[in-house]
């Protein structure tokens, strides 16, 4: 069961059972709906941006423990970050999931516990779903504000 313990660390199961940052934001600055066509998992991600900083972030949707825990951890670590730092955070996590870099707890917070997912290629998409949604969300926000003003 060593492999399973490695994948499903206690922290992951804790975030799965007690989701942080769950729900939607009314009047969000940007929203994205992503889904994983392989399994049908869905993720709604909303961010509230003030002065180029994420003041609120919420994730909603349905999915497996990995995708739900990853979304929960994301909302914790991304809240309060400026947009550029948030993009760096997503990029670090993406590289960790692809096995290219070692997870850095100072950057990832609780999401460091997801490092073991990199060994399960099928599950990497689950972990990345909400994180890549944040990248889309920021891109969408920048596009809208650029054209809007």
């Amino acid at each position: 069961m060593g492999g399973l313990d490695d994948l499903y660390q206690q922290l992951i199961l804790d975030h799965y059972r007690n989701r942080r940052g769950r729900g939607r934001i009314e009047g969000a600055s940007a929203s994205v709906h992503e889904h994983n066509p392989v399994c049908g998992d869905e993720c709604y991600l909303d961010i509230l941006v003030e002065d180029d900083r994420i003041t609120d972030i919420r994730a909603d949707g349905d999915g497996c423990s990995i995708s739900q825990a990853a979304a929960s951890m994301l909302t914790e670590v991304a809240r309060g970050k400026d947009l550029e730092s948030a993009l760096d955070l997503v990029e670090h996590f993406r590289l960790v999931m692809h096995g290219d870099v070692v997870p850095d707890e100072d950057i990832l917070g609780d999401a460091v516990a997801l490092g073991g997912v990199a060994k399960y290629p099928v599950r990497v998409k689950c972990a990345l779903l909400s994180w890549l949604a944040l990248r889309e969300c920021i891109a969408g926000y920048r596009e809208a504000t650029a054209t809007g003003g």
Partner: protein
Amino acid sequence: MGDSTHTALDARAIRAEFPILSSPRPGADGVHYLDSAATSQKPERVLDAMDAYYRETNANVHRGVYEMAAEATQRFEAGRDAVARLVNHPREGTIFTKNATEAINLVAWAWGVRELREGDEVLVTMMEHHSNTVPWQIVAGITGATVRFCPLTPEGDLDMDALRAMLGDRTRMVAVVHVSNTLGTINPVEEIVSMAHDVGALTMVDATQSVPHMPVDATAIGSDFLAFTGHKMCGPTGIGVLAAQPGRLEDMEPFLGGGEMISDVTTEGSTWNDIPWKFEAGTPPIAEAVGLGEAARFLGEIGPERIRSHEMAIAQQMLDALDDIPGVTVLGPRDIARRGASVSFTLDGVHPHDIGQFLDSRGVCVRAGHHCTKPLMRHLGVQSTARASAYLYTTDEDITALHDALAGCRAWFGAP
């Protein structure tokens, strides 16, 4: 099938003929393969037949005059004979395709694009695999025809009254799955074909989940077209079958053009080869046809009735095992006479992906996801399910392993 129908199938002896099922895997006592609805394992004799073809007589078919080429052609066409015999269908109506999906696309393009008009209707069911939905949607987009979905009863059977009401003058094609890969439901395809013919519609039966598991008599079903795939019936990937009424094929234009399918080619145009070759453009999957032929002989010798009887017993064991786990909900019919041994289920508080991952750690292979039946998933109001599916090599030990692993899974994830 003679006396073979009266003796039970010895799944343990059959299992020993499948090398992969006895190969040890790390962290497990052997593999409990419960994903045969996705693809079946292959017996040694199928692997040997394909290997022998490449080692002894590899040559292109229907071309060379040398002995090796004649032998290759003979083994290839013998594969067609074996497959045609298994489903009681004339050999000239038995076309090799890449898979069942391509067989359905062949009809959608060669018949649908030419024959469908605006206002025409293609009737499919809510439990179709995407392979028997998406090709019709594409062709409807080109022709202006409409694709309509027949609903299901709450228990997961086809709503035959609704089907009857939906059939009419506009119906040109009724495309229906014989056995649902997600729900396990067995549809009364003979009756449906007859109802469709009464209103002048053609029929496409997706027999992908029936041909491997039970007697299928294509002549008795009487469908204009019937499709199935090789890799779910102990054969290789890369080959499927379209069993079509020869008269229909004579009237149809080709699907793909190229070598093999022509009678003559001039700078002005071409004429077509006889059926079935008219629909087999290019060098066909030769080794795969040899392997599929051997698989058809293997299934025929064991006897489809005995396979079905075995799977009914296993399906009952599976339902009992699942009922024993608190929080498990089984989808589809409960009556094993009306279902195959492919059983979808959910477990309260545990996502199907996590079920699949945990069961894998116990050496139990199940599928998790939407099973390429997204309209059905939406209809049922579930995002995904776990699915355990059995075959002729599935034993009661596999079902016990499933049961124990699911109990462990509940505890691990702290399910309610």
